[in-house]
């Protein structure tokens, strides 16, 4: 930070996310305790720690992820084996979340469904984050007709009723998890592209970019090594929020029967299966949806906390555009 005398040169520690953001006085290193100023990542962590709801959300997400990863260890019931003698049993000591119409354990299916739903959510967010960053960086850095063209395409994608296109597209495909990730990623890159474009627009006027150019760095080098590391805050925030949106969309798509296809369980198609039994076996409805709600809510709160920590001026910048 500018007010620190012994600032480490950015070549050594290339992580100044909060380039010109004033740091709250309570987050500055107390005088005399440290030889150097706190790094931007430390400050971000301190800011994040104040956000109690975000911390709780992080803990919940870790638990849900662990439950999904170790699903087959935690639940002793097989996801696919029917047990007709115990069909449509309500929640009890043996089957915590009850059983479905063919006697399969709902708890086990919800945990295994979580694997697919989380995998889709995280993958879609990562791919669309990478692609959106690429588009946004090109548009922001090169400006002029490149910017015009890319932003009009972005607008076009935003205007498309995407659930309709997703349904059409997935009826063309076989509904494997990989394909679902692919087609969802095609419709999640736009917010990232817009935000990164704005960030790059403001960063490219900075002195350190000018210095890099003066020392003979190529455009590609400037974008990858000088601009993008400084835009990491907004990228992380938008990617996190996209995880929530992707989980919701995947489950909606699977719920309508156009997403991940049974017998592979996902939270969405578990609810689709429950649809015929809403009155007979409401527990088939409760649990998959509850897991979606808790996960998405936690991801959204986490994203909110990360925004406060990493990118406190994002709203301001968005408005300036």
């Amino acid at each position: 930070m500018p007010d620190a005398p012994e600032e480490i040169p950015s070549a050594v520690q290339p992580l100044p996310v909060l380039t010109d953001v004033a740091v709250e006085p309570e987050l500055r290193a107390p005088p005399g305790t440290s030889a150097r100023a706190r790094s931007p990542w430390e400050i971000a962590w301190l800011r994040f720690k104040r956000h109690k709801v975000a911390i709780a959300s992080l803990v919940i997400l870790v638990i849900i992820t662990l439950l999904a990863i170790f699903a087959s260890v935690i639940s002793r019931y097989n996801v696919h084996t029917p047990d007709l003698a115990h069909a449509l049993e309500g929640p009890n000591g043996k089957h915590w979340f009850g059983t479905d119409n063919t006697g399969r354990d709902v708890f086990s299916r919800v945990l295994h469904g979580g694997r697919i739903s989380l995998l889709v959510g995280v993958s879609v967010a990562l791919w669309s984050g990478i692609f959106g960053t690429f588009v946004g960086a090109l548009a922001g850095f090169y400006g002029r007709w490149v910017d015009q063209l890319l932003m009009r395409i972005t607008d076009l994608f935003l205007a498309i009723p995407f659930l309709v296109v997703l349904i059409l597209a997935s009826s063309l495909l076989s509904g494997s998890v990989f394909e679902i990730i692919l087609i969802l990623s095609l419709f999640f890159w736009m917010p990232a592209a817009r935000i990164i474009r704005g960030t790059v627009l403001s960063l490219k006027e900075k002195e350190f970019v000018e210095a890099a150019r003066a020392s003979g760095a190529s455009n590609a080098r400037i974008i990858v090594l000088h601009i993008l590391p400084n835009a990491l805050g907004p990228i992380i925030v938008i990617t996190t929020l996209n995880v929530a949106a992707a989980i919701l969309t995947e489950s909606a798509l699977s719920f309508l029967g156009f997403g991940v296809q049974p017998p592979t369980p996902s939270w969405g198609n578990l609810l689709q299966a429950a649809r015929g039994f809403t009155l007979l076996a409401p527990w088939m409805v409760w649990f998959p949806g509850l897991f979606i709600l808790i996960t998405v809510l936690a991801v959204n709160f986490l994203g909110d906390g990360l925004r406060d920590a990493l990118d406190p001026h994002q709203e301001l910048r968005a408005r300036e555009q």
Partner: protein
Amino acid sequence: MLRYVIRRLIFSVPLLIIASILVFVVVRHVTDPTASLRLNPRATPQDIIRLKHQLGLDRSGYQQYTAWLSHFVRGDWGSSLISSRPVFTDIKQALGNSIILGLAGVIISLIIGVAIGTLSALRQYSKFDNIATGGAFLGLSMPNFWFALLLQVFFGLYLTRWLNSGSPIFYTAGMTSPGTVGFDLVDRLRHLVLPATVLAVQIIAIYSRLMRASMLDVMHADYIRTARAKGLRERRVVINHGMRNALIPITTQLGLDLGSIAGGLIITESIFQWPGMGRFFIDAINNGDYPQLLPWTMVVVFSVIVFNLLVDIAYAVLDPRIRYA
């Protein structure tokens, strides 16, 4: 302004054509109109060839597309493969039903969302604001199809059983009770409440956040200080100077939401068996009914384009800074 509007409308024509080609290719690729005939053991191969000829499937894709387009433009939208009913009347009816549901949901949400957002902004970080923020997060994170199923279980099963009544207070499926003669407003409303609620939960969350942010922004503007300095009553400052300007960003969202009513209520309509555009689309896809899908897409894309345009115009009308810039 007029020139701008006309230019935008002309630009939308190629967009419609591209959309129609894409949909034509995809739909023809996915669906097989002869499938049901093929399954019929008594149908001969000649029957299948005759049907293909009847439907024009033996011609090239290009010929099929242009033939469809020329009919479509002249108002001949063809008829459904399944029910043989004219597509035009079916879509008109479905659109009408979607508009009833969509408008009900959006108008309720607009009123509640704006009220919550304004109060939140005026009492920033108060208990009310915190609860509203939490509620908005909950609304945004709620899978709407799950919420719909919960409402169905609650009203269709528990409440009916508890009240020991024959029929639920709010119906969980359809738009009218079977056997209803003529227009029965009460019956209609009892069907409308649950699907409209599902729509409203998400929209209220979005509108209240938008309104809060925009109101916070406006109330710190110089002209609000001027209005207060002039000695206007606070009520007048908030409503006439504050809310009027803070509503501009909501208008954008409102326009886009209205535009998406034509095609965007797929989930709600299919759960509550509401005979609107969304259900029409899902049924058409599942039946491989391509004569229904193509005009449907045209209507949806056209609606999105028109409402995007209306939003831009409304923006210019509402915000003099844009008009005179």
